[in-house]
């Protein structure tokens, strides 16, 4: 029983780290641009398909494929900012609708290019190990990649936001775009930067997790639903809240899946979010209400 609990904990850590990568990106976009990016799950999906295209179909090294996924999706993020979100910046609903349009287009484009069937991707490294010498607990190395990748990226993002001038500019824009512009910070440039970081994080998550999850053109749907839950529970605009909520959700969802079933776990997750919204309509760590 202890071993099952420990195994579930390990799985939960994997689920939360991968969710944190996506939710923090979603939050970053909302913080700087005030747009809820519905196409974020599709950015994740494109990251996974970069691995399909480069690694599974053409036998290039896995980590090269991950890097390509990261850069490709990041650049796509910059294009999204320029073409979709910048023209409608003063109207958050329009940004949301535009991202829904993009979601439909990306799904259809990938479905036409790769087919709607699930892709089979062999993990580059099939090795597993038993942490702390526990026989009953198995960790696949591939999952460890995701956990380490998420940890490194989130830590460097934190340092970037706290210690560099670009990071300060980004946080200033998130707090008050007008005041930031008065200080000589370019809002367009900052938005582009935020969009690149957020999209690249989603692409990285998709690329690293591609051999572990079901990779098909509509895989973004379940991811975006979860990411919404996490961002809302954490409170819109709070990156620390997003990470906390990702861990909370990861553990709750994994435990309910293990001891009941997946659909019940989804329902519990959604109810958890509704509960948080009812008790604290701006999320656990959300402080301000952005109108």
């Amino acid at each position, binding site marked *: 029983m202890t071993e099952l609990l420990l195994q579930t904990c390990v799985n939960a850590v994997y689920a939360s780290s991968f969710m944190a990568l996506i939710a923090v990106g979603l939050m970053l976009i909302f913080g700087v641009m005030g747009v809820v990016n519905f196409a974020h799950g599709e950015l994740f999906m494109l990251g996974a398909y970069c691995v399909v295209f480069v690694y599974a179909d053409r036998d290039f090294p896995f980590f090269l494929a991950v890097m390509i996924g990261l850069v490709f999706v990041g650049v796509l993020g910059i294009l999204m900012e320029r073409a979709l979100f910048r023209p409608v910046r003063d109207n958050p609903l*329009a940004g*949301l609708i535009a991202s*829904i349009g993009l979601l439909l*287009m990306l799904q259809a484009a990938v479905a*036409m290019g790769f087919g709607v069937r699930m892709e089979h991707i062999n993990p580059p490294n099939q090795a597993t190990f038993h942490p702390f010498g526990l026989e009953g607990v198995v960790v696949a190395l591939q999952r460890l990649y995701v956990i380490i990748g998420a940890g490194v990226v989130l830590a460097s993002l934190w340092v970037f936001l706290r210690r560099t001038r670009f990071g300060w500019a980004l946080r200033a824009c998130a707090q008050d775009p007008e005041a930031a512009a008065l200080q000589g910070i370019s809002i367009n440039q900052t938005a582009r930067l935020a969009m690149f970081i957020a999209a690249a994080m989603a692409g990285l998550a998709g690329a690293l997790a591609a051999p572990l999850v079901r990779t098909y053109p509509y895989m973004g749907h379940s991811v975006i639903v979860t990411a*919404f839950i996490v961002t809302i529970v954490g409170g819109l605009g709070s990156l620390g809240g997003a990470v906390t909520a990702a861990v909370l959700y990861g553990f709750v969802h994994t435990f309910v899946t293990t001891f009941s079933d997946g659909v019940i776990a*989804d329902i519990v997750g959604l109810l958890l979010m*509704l509960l948080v919204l009812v008790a604290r*309509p*701006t999320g656990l760590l959300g402080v301000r209400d952005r109108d």
Partner: protein
Amino acid sequence: MVSAWGSRGAFVGLFAGLIVLPHLLSFSQKEVAVFLVINVLVVVSYRLLTLTGEWSLAHVVITGVGAYASTLLAKRLGVPVPVAMPLGAAVAALTAYVLSFPLFRMKAFYFLIGSFAAGEVIRLCWKRFREPFGGPKGIKLIPSVPDIDIGIVDVAFFDPVNYYYLCLVVVTASVVVLRRLEQSRIGLTFHAIHWQDKLAESVGVDTRRYRTLAFVIASFFGGLAGALLAHYLGTVNPNQFDVESMVYVLVWVIVGGTATIYGPILGVVALTVVNEIVLRELGVDQARPLIYGAILIASILFLPDGLESLGPKMKRAFVRARERSDRGGTRG
């Protein structure tokens, strides 16, 4: 007076066209016409909800509540279908009333996401609980609307043309009711809440009660649309009411525009015609979401007030062009 007669004439013409229409279509197009009329009710009821300024992502699930409720009443409890349909709509309205307690604590994005979550919970319950909702495969063999057979009049609703007329009657009546409602004091209050909710509150309007009212009424008519759909198709399943269907409703409403009741109708009709005539004839089934997405993005970037704003815009441009040519003429 002349213009009133003119618009009345236009309406009479429109209805004559709508009555003749199904006889000019092929069988599959007749079915599409049935779905189109039902979808008109979905978008018009959705617009009532957006009047107060809140955009819900649960509306399609609410139509599903109407469909499931009416189905279960008719199939399990043996309620006659014409009674089960409004009862299903009432269940949808009741569901909305219950949901309004948690949801209207939130505003703007929180409401959007909260309504999405609430809708998904309901949908996942249909999927998970085989008893009584039938699980992922849903419910089949739903009783259809009983045939009318009184002497000379014999109307079988299995025929899409007759079902089309039934839907047309129900939907037209609903649209008239919704339009009247919008022009009434209640409707004006909805508008006031949308544009100036603090000001409305300061003169004693209970904004939350009016938001709830809009949500409940919109859900009643949405549920009615769902019931109409269920008894025509003869089957309901959770995937009919997923977020993709909600996206299509959003596309129709956004492309049409929400300023007047005609905007969403224009949107759903225009896009259905494009979908059925242009895309189906071209045989680009797989690329359809691609084109829909492009239309959505283009309309949000270039026509943010929807198709309905096209008429006045062109009129203005025309007037301006004429003024310019007039000025040019006097100068010359």
